[in-house]
């Protein structure tokens, strides 16, 4: 897979159009929204199916409990807001959705620190840790808009609570030949022998570029797109440990509670644990700057991933 001249799109753009298409094809979707439909693209669904769209105002707690109630009637309920505001309704997600295992899909945009200029309050550095802590939830982070569409479609087709984190900035499309998403399966975008880079979200494309740079200096890197955070593809991690002997996890999230921590737990339980390095947000909140600058401040760059890979390869020798 080459990373030159890719088209760009924001993963948040997938939601509304995908839901419209699924509803037109016979799904029973209801969308609940908390006054952010323009930004999340949920309004596209409202424009097509106004009777199936309920606004709850800026009141996420009420929205999430009502989503649970709606789901008891058999509708597929999609709750749309920003990632940080989905966190606002954590207890409602626990009591009104997760524990009773209701068919609610939380699709939250503006995930991670790449919301940029809005600063710390708008940058969700802990969202999928929270959702992964909720039993019964499937948790996904798309690597591009094509995968985001596939994840939304899979969520609508699969009973149970889901969380999908999408992003604000336009990022390169890597699945130009169509999605390869499978629930709970890592997608090997590039094979390698010296190190495996496990990534999700916008770090996937950056990891691919890091792998190309590493190749130039003789390090062969496997790249896994871990689109499903939960349930984690433990088999792919075990194979990565066995085949490459070192792992880097790269994500737009706190490392101590995110994909890195979850991968480390899985690797620690294998018979042959391997050295790991973690690229992500290091126990801090964000700040205002352009989205690309914030990623740079946090070290979530091609160079950051590359350096972590060199470090972990050195550790195994």
């Amino acid at each position: 897979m080459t990373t030159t001249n890719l088209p760009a799109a924001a993963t948040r753009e997938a939601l509304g159009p995908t839901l419209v298409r699924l509803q037109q094809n016979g799904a029973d979707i209801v969308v609940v929204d908390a006054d952010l439909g323009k930004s999340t693209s949920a309004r596209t669904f409202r424009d097509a199916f106004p009777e199936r769209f309920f606004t709850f105002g800026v009141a996420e707690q009420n929205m999430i409990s009502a989503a649970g109630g709606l789901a008891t009637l058999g509708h597929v309920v999609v709750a749309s807001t920003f990632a940080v505001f989905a966190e606002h309704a954590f207890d409602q997600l626990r009591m009104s959705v997760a524990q009773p295992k209701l068919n609610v899909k939380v699709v939250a945009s503006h995930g991670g620190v790449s919301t940029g200029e809005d600063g710390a309050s708008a940058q969700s550095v802990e969202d999928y840790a929270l959702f992964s802590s909720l039993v019964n939830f499937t948790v996904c982070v798309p690597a591009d808009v094509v995968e985001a569409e596939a994840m939304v479609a899979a969520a609508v087709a699969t009973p149970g609570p889901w969380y999908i984190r999408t992003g604000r900035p336009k990022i390169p499309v890597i699945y130009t030949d169509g999605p390869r998403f499978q629930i709970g399966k890592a997608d090997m975008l590039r094979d390698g022998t010296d190190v495996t880079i496990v990534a999700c979200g916008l770090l996937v494309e950056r990891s691919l570029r890091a792998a190309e740079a590493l190749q130039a200096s003789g390090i062969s890197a496997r790249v896994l797109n871990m689109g499903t955070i939960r349930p984690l593809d433990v088999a792919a991690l075990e194979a990565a440990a066995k085949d490459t002997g070192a792992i880097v996890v790269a994500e737009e999230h706190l490392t101590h509670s995110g994909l890195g921590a979850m991968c480390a737990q899985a690797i620690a339980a294998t018979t042959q644990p391997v050295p790991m390095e973690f690229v992500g947000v290091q126990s801090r909140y964000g700040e205002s700057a352009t989205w690309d600058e914030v990623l740079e401040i946090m070290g979530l760059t091609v160079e950051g991933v590359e350096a972590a890979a060199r470090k972990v390869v050195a550790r195994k020798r």
Partner: protein
Amino acid sequence: MVAGTGTDLRAFTQRVRRHVVEMVYGAQSGHIGGSMSSTEILAVLYGRIMRHDPKRPDWAERDRFVMSKGHCTPVQYATLAESGYFPVEELSTFRKKGTRLQGHSVLGKPEGVENSAGALGMGLSFGLGIRLGMRLSNIDAHVYVLMGDGEQDEGQVWEAAMAASHHGVDRLVAIIDRNGIQNDDFTAATMRTEPLDEKYRAFGWEVRAGIDGHNLEAVEEALAWARDVRGKPALVIFDTVKGKGVSFMENNPNFHGAAPNAEQFARAMEELA
């Protein structure tokens, strides 16, 4: 069908109260006070007002009862059992290892429990969602949500009150069991929520307040009124007595969440004979 038509509700409530005391004594934990204040409300709902069928708990056209004050499972389980949802004998498993009857409500355990609760303030939102879903599915059933008065402290209740009115939801009936006591103290001392009736009216609800929640005829009349309100959500605020039916538990904050000892249990069962 209305399952309990013809049932002697006075005798029904007496049996429920005895179950409540036995369950909490048997588990040595649980919430007697708020169960006893809601006993007539649940008896009238299940016996006179709601369209339901204990033999078909998943009937799509059924009215739903949402227990928002999810700690009052003793009265909920006892009412469901006495209405025929599951055997009365199972009540003795309340809060014990392996039971379906957890300390706080869990959706579907047993059949007839329509929501999970225990964290307060969510039931009105959940019931609102159910009613919105019914409206979309062209189901003309009702949703009845029982809340406590202490629960009105929760901000989410007011989010739901606003949204129900905004969306013009009817056949959504909120009920407040206004027993005046919450966990630590009297509600008036903990957080001033009154005037609840005026607040809900300002939020766009049809409201009846000041109804004696232990007078079966008054409870039935008020709930029948609320059931028939159209174009708006409806609220009935019942004035009740926490621990109603056992003299030393009545209006006593110590019997919010505490179990009686052997001597108190004997006295309570004597009073409820």
